[in-house]
């Protein structure tokens, strides 16, 4: 069994994790930078397209960089149980920075389990990872600025993007666009995206009603500002904004509010020695992630004055977090799309009507196995929250499915929680 000890362990090699590693290593701290993905960059720099300033940090073979590595459990304070393709190992740290990023909010609608239906950012991720979409007809739907970024990636890869359907209305979109004047970098990005996407129809107050097909997606039924339209397509990417990945933070006992980690001015969580940076503290995009990662890296490596000097810059990012959440909040129709027989839990094939017989997440888990498959509620948890109003969504260790040989290495029982 391998063991390793570092000053600072950083979970997540996206923008926040890379910025943290850069700041901490410049001060001489020993760092382990690990990521579940085989390549660094997170979602924004997916496929190894890491910003040049950080490229050296994420070189395959660097002693501190551990790609393809997931955190399985947090057996005791200062220790992580990790698993990669070659097996399990323990990592000991003095400080931990969690830069676990975000996932998409994926909500059920009839036909959402058909092959060919993906997340919107999910489809973008597949394309950035080399999926061939040349000449394929694509519809993107859901909400948020990510839809436009996904459309640009799909078009650049040769797809025929038939339509981008944004569920929010023009009034909120206008408010959001007006707010971009405060953030020149984001405004420039928006203008560039607008240019790349010229000719691609963009509809507000519009959403997917159902995906249809035999064995595979063939058609999508849409509401376009009150008018129903059916489109033939090969791929449908639907994502309702982003959700912070907080499973590790929750396992470590860090306080979460509205699904995001609560941090102080140095990015420290409610637990001493544990920091959170980037989307895990609230969805705000690349610039916020880079700044927070840098603050966390500085603070964790003892550069307190330098960290404090950056804290003031966070304010405008936090304003953006609130604007993003407000302008792209969900219209009530989205939570009404799933029908009685629509599967909500994709791992265990549990339909909405079966879940509706129960009053809580815990009860539904015990009776239907909802949330107990390989994803451990990462997808259906958010769906149950949105559709059924359940708020007690929680996970137990292991944080990721693991091999039995890995679990056998855990010195303590993985859960001290009493079984029901």
């Amino acid at each position, binding site marked *: 069994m391998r063991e390793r000890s570092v000053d600072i362990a950083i979970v997540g090699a996206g923008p926040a994790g890379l910025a943290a590693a850069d700041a901490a290593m410049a001060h001489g701290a020993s760092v382990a930078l690990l990521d579940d*993905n085989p390549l660094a960059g997170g979602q924004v720099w997916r496929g190894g397209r890491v910003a040049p300033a950080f490229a050296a940090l994420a070189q395959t073979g660097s002693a501190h960089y551990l790609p393809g590595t997931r955190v399985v459990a947090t057996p005791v304070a200062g220790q992580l149980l990790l698993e990669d393709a070659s097996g399990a190992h323990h990592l000991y740290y003095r400080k931990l920075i969690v830069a676990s990023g975000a996932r998409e909010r994926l909500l059920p609608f009839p036909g959402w389990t058909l092959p060919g239906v993906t997340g919107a950012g999910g489809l973008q991720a597949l394309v950035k990872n080399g999926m061939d979409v040349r000449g394929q007809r694509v519809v993107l739907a859901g909400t948020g600025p990510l839809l436009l970024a996904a459309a640009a990636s799909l078009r650049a890869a040769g797809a025929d993007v038939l339509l981008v359907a944004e569920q929010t209305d023009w009034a909120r979109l206008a408010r959001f666009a007006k707010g971009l004047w405060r953030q020149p970098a984001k405004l420039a990005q928006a203008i560039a995206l607008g240019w790349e996407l010229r000719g691609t129809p963009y509809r507000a107050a519009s959403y997917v009603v159902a995906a249809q097909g035999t064995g595979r997606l063939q058609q999508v039924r849409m509401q376009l500002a009150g008018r129903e339209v059916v489109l033939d397509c090969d791929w449908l990417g639907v994502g309702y904004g982003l959700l912070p990945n907080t499973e590790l933070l929750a396992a470590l006992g860090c306080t979460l509010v509205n699904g995001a980690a609560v941090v102080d001015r140095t990015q420290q969580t409610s637990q001493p020695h544990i920091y959170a940076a980037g989307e895990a503290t609230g969805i705000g995009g690349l610039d916020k992630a880079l700044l927070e990662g840098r603050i966390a890296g500085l603070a964790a490596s003892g550069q307190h004055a330098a960290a404090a000097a950056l804290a003031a810059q966070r304010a405008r990012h936090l304003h953006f977090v609130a604007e993003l959440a407000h302008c792209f909040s969900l219209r009530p129709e989205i939570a009404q799309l799933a029908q009685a027989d629509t599967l909500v839990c994709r791992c265990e094939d549990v339909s909405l009507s079966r879940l509706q017989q129960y009053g809580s997440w815990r009860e539904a888990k015990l009776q239907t196995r909802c949330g107990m498959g390989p994803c451990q509620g990462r997808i259906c948890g958010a769906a149950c929250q949105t559709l059924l109003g359940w708020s007690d969504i929680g996970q137990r260790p292991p944080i990721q499915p693991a091999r039995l040989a890995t679990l056998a290495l855990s010195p303590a029982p993985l859960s001290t929680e009493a079984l029901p």
Partner: protein
Amino acid sequence: MKVTIWINGQRREVPSGTTLAAALAGLPGRRSVGGEPRAAFCGMGVCHECRVSVDGRAQQRACQLLVQEGMEVDCDA
């Protein structure tokens, strides 16, 4: 540069640097516990819908693996 992988015993050339999920896009995949066809969904390691057997190791997320020369993939495992 291309690498050769084997998908359900069929030889296939795919660009190196591609994730396995990207290489499998559009091909028939696994069945859910209720027998429905499924394929990659979240694209980023969260939903586990793209899991396949790789070189005899079951339940691997195809979206978190890069294609490797000689990789043997069983999509229905």
